[in-house]
């Protein structure tokens, strides 16, 4: 699947040949949920009805709150985006005026996966979604990658 024009327009840094359009538009979950591996719920740090945030984590849109939320899934802060065997990484993006804006998760073979708001999931080199929409990566977190077992 090629990337929709609205995605290319929003992210001028995207090199289409290096990205993959991996899902149709889906309004059920957002980028944070996708990075957390949850395609059922809308994760939102602010305390607003009808949204999910891990219990016991401060409901405020700060980097600390995002890190604590991913911490509930076993992630701890790490140094960089390098591919490390056995580790699954997430990257949290910050816009200097808006605070945290986005989260992406590293796939087992190196590229990253992002859910774009209410739109599609894409696979991409991490830095290609940096820019005026999401700002830049502010922190990385990692946890041991779960082994996929055959049924």
């Amino acid at each position, binding site marked *: 699947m090629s990337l929709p024009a609205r995605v290319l327009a929003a992210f001028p840094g995207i090199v289409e040949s290096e990205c993959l359009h991996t899902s149709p538009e889906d*309004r059920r979950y*957002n980028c944070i949920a996708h990075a957390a591996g949850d395609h059922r*719920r809308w994760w939102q740090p602010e305390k*607003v*009805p009808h949204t999910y945030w891990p219990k016991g984590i401060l409901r405020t849109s700060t980097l600390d709150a995002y890190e604590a939320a991913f911490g509930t899934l076993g992630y701890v802060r790490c140094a960089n985006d390098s591919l490390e065997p056995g580790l699954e990484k997430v990257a949290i993006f910050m816009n200097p005026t808006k605070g945290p804006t986005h989260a992406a998760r590293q796939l087992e073979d190196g590229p990253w996966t992002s859910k*774009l*708001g209410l*739109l599609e999931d894409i696979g991409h080199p991490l830095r290609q979604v940096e820019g005026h*929409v*999401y700002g830049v990566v502010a922190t990385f977190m990692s946890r041991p990658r779960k082994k996929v077992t055959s049924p």
Partner: protein
Amino acid sequence: MFEELCHRWKEETSTPSTDFMAIVMNSAYQRIISLGWDAVPLILAELKIQPDHWGWALEAITGENPVPAEAEGDIEQIGSAWLQWGRANHLIA
């Protein structure tokens, strides 16, 4: 009117940076809320076709919240709870 506003809401919120507040504060969504109880059966009919972020509007209009705490964030479960409420209140078949 409802269909037009609904279409506009979906169109305007289909962006890579839309967060939950942008979804529910969208002007078309707010105009749907301003339609009041007339909009409730129409929203429920929409929910029957496809789950979407209608819980906020339904709660704002009706003052009810039939959604169990464990369904937070899950728009399919939220939609199911509202459809059940709509049936119990004879607003949809």
